[in-house]
Every structure is written in C-alpha cells, then in structure tokens.
C-alpha cells in the first residue's frame, strides 16, 4: 500500500533522515516509534509532500509521491493528521470537518461521513458549532482525526494522536483508531511516543533513532525485544 525506500530528508545543512525504508501493508496498522527528534514527523511530512525530500522514493499504491505537492497527494487517498493537532482555530467544528472533505464533491457522502465522525466522537457532535480554537486539547485531537477521515482516505497517517492527552482519553482514542482500521478497512501509519499502546494495536513496528530505522519486526516480537523494553517501554 505504502512503501518508503531509502528516503533522505534534510533541513538546510541538517540531515534529519538518513535513508529510511518501510512498508505498510494494505489494511494493516504499522507504527513508528522513536525518541524526540528522531525524525518521525519529518518522515510523515515528507511522505505527504509538506516538505521536500532529498532522495529516495515513496510509493503509494504503486504511484510515486515524491515531487508532488501536498494538496495533490491528499487527492490520491493518503491523509495526514499533523503533529500538534493544527485544527483551524477560527472555524467551527463542523467547518473543520467540511474542510477535511475539501476535495470531495459528493454532498450526501460528505454528510454521511460527518455523521460517522460524530458517532465516533459524540463530544464533537455536542460542540459542532463551537470554534475549534476553544476546544480542549483532547477534543482538538478528536477533531484532527475526524477531519483527516473526512477526505475518505485509503491510508491515514497519524502523528502522535496521544500527545498531551489524559490517559483515559488516550485509551479511547486508540480504540477509535482500531475501530477505523477494522470498520473502514483503512490502512494506518501511526507515529507515537506512547510505544506501549502503539505496539499493542499495530501489526508491524519500526524503531527510528536519529534518522535511521534501527529495528523492525512484528509488534509482538518488538514488545519482547530487550532493547525496545529498555528504551521505549520503560523497562517493564
């Protein structure tokens, strides 16, 4: 579904990704874990065209994405929910969702998907007319995920959906991620600091360290890997 080959990305003189390769199988959840500054967000941004890559290749359903502008990549069916939520602060909840469906023309389908998002996050439904900038952090995260779903993607990339969110809500959000994956058959690439949960819900896992993939395996195996336990699972 999504295949990254030898991707190199830099910011000016800094090289943030030194040739990264990974695959996300259709219908699966893959996860990328790593410390702060390892290059996780950089990878997602390069895949979705928000920043340019130096070299390598990103194939989505067999099509090369590198070199295409971000807004055209969304049109191909790959959605990105960026780190730090980034909802449109001055638009209402409902307008934010509508912007997620910006490229779609099917009014009825859009309304149906909006209701699906509202069913999934009833909190958003209650606050549909509220200005997004005044939502709590957790609500904004729900909105960011919902908004990304509104483009009806076949593959969804989520950048730290648990960032800054209370543990109770984190569990809910992860449940929803699994639900999206099962019910909609959506392929998901998940970037997380919360390695515990991420490795639990995903099938394939990758560990990134200073711009390089240092480990990759089935998530079950990764959870038992001493190195992963030591560095990312808090030693238990």
């Amino acid at each position, binding site marked *: 579904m999504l295949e990254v080959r030898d991707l190199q990305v830099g910011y000016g003189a800094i090289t943030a990704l030194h040739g990264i390769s990974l695959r996300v199988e259709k219908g699966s959840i893959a996860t990328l874990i790593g410390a702060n500054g390892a290059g996780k967000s950089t990878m997602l941004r390069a895949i979705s065209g928000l920043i340019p890559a130096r070299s390598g290749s990103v194939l989505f359903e067999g099509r090369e994405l590198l070199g295409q502008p971000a807004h055209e990549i969304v049109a191909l069916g790959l959605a990105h929910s960026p780190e730090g939520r980034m*909802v449109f602060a001055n638009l209402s909840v409902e307008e934010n969702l509508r912007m997620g469906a910006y490229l779609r023309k099917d009014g009825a389908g859009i309304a149906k998907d909006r209701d699906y998002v509202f069913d999934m996050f009833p909190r958003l439904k209650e606050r549909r007319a509220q200005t997004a900038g005044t939502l709590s952090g957790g609500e904004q995260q729900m909105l960011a995920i919902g908004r990304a779903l509104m483009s009806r993607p076949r593959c969804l990339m989520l950048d730290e959906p648990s960032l800054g969110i209370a543990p109770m809500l984190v569990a809910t959000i992860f449940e929803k991620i699994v639900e999206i994956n099962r019910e909609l058959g959506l392929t998901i690439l998940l970037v997380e600091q919360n390695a515990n949960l991420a490795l639990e819900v995903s099938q394939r896992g990758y560990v990134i360290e200073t711009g390089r993939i240092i480990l990759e395996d089935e998530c079950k195996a990764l959870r038992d890997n001493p190195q992963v336990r030591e560095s990312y699972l808090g030693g238990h």
Partner: protein
Amino acid sequence: MEKLMNNGGSNGAKRWLLLGLVLVAVVSAFSGMINRYYLGVLVEAGVNVTLAVSLNLINGYTGQFSLGHGGFMAVGAYLAAKLTLLFGPALPPALQPVLFAGALLCGGMGAALAGLLVGVPSLRLRGDYLAVVTLAFGEIIRVVFQNSPAFGAATGLSGIAPWTNFFWSWSVALVTVYVVLALVHSTYGRGFLAVNDDEIAASAMGINPVRYKVTAFVVGAFFAGVAGGLFAHLKRAINPEGFNFMRSIDVVVMVILGGMGNTAGVVVAAVLLTLLPELLRGFSEYRMIVYSLLIITLMLLRPQGLFGRSSKGGRL
C-alpha cells in the same frame, strides 16, 4: 459558481445586497436634495468602502499584509480615465454609462493583472517582508505613470468626465461587499480562513494555499482598480502623487480600525474615516492632529477593531 453560493452565509449576504441596492436607488433619486458638498463626501465614502473591503480580503481574511492598494488603485484610475478621455467626447450621451462601466471594468482588470504579479512573490513572503514588497511595487507603479507621457507624466490626467455619482460609487461598494462575503462564506471560501489559520494543515487537507493567496490578491486588486476608476471620475483630475504609499496606508488603517476579517466593521470604519476629517473642519489647522489622536484613542480602546475581529472570520 454553484459551489460558491451553496452556503447559508451567502443568503444573508444576498439580503444585504438587495436591501443596500434599494437604499442606493432611493438616495440617488433624492440626491438632488442633498447639499452638493456633503453628497461629494458620501460618494467618496463609497469609494473608500470598496477599497477597504477589498483590502480586507487580502489582509484580513487571508492574513497577508499588503501595502499595495494605492498602486492597484492607480492602475485602475489611469486606465479608466484614459479610456473615457479617449472615447468619451465622440460618444452620444446615452452611451456614456456603457463606456463608464466598460472603463471601470478595464481598470479593474488591469489592476487584477497587477495583483497577479504581486501575488506571486506573496507565495514566498509573509508579514513584514510581504508588506515591504507590496509597498515597493505600489511605488514602482506610481513611478511608471510619473514617467509616461501618454498618462500625463508628473502632471497626470485632467478634464476627466464627472461621472462618479452616489449611485455608481455605492453600487460598486455593495457589489464588492457582496462578492467578498459570498466568497469567504462559501465552502470554497472557507479555504481563505483555513489558509490564514494554518497553512500546513490546510495543505494537508488538499487545499492549495498558493491558489488562495493569489486569488485574494487578484480579487482584492480588481476592486481596488474599479475604486480607482471611480476616484478618477470623482476628482476629475489625477496625478501620480495622489497614489503614493500614504494612500495605501489610509486603506490599511480603515481595515485595522474596522477589525481584520470583519466586513461590517470595515465598512463602518471606511465611512467614518471619510467623514471624520470633514466633521473636524472646525479645528482648521489642527484638524489632522485631532484626527490622528482620535484614531490612536480608538485603537487603544478597541485594539481588535470597532466590531472586533470576529472569531468566525467575520459573520458579517
């Protein structure tokens, strides 16, 4: 176009447009009864509303910072005036309104083209940098006219037909308000606000920020150009000095005072700032000082603008 209009917000705008046009027609019919001097001030207020509301699309809704409105206005003023000077005298009076409308439109389109040229650097620049570039661009336009004998060089053009009346000035103002509101309240137009809020997130939604920024410049410049044409046919003589950067700053002040991204506020501010210097004539030579003090006071009392920067990007 359908996509532009299929939004509840534009229904409100349509009502306002209708109401406004009726009002304009009524006032026009009775304009003979209004003191000529005050009428002139009102006509000028309409021109300023067009200028401020169109700049608000660029600076308020799309969150860019343009100081180029004086330049766009100059393009429209010169083109429209040149056209009516060339073709006006030979024309039977019945066709004059047609020529005037055509000249205003040409002026608007010339300005829109200039807007396209400035919009392109806006893709890479923001904030203060963009302000400097647009300022410089406006000055270049002015200097070009200053050195073109065809446009009267430093003396400018005079003997322009006095065709701008209450009807023309306020009809154009109303259409500008309508177009800007219909635009930003449409599903397509919510993109302007999205780009303003967060460009990266907007791209991630499939919105092309470049297109929106350039569109804002082109549409904004178009109406500034039309306003320039009205201005020329109101003042009857134009020269390059009349379009220097102070002109742009006047319009920026109207937008800031009215509240960025708040069309109703900007309309009120444009009218108020046109009337104010006239109302202050009693202060004679201290007039401009009182005027400036009033603006400073207003900004201190209401830093968000008269009506505030509406959190919804201007619900009207």
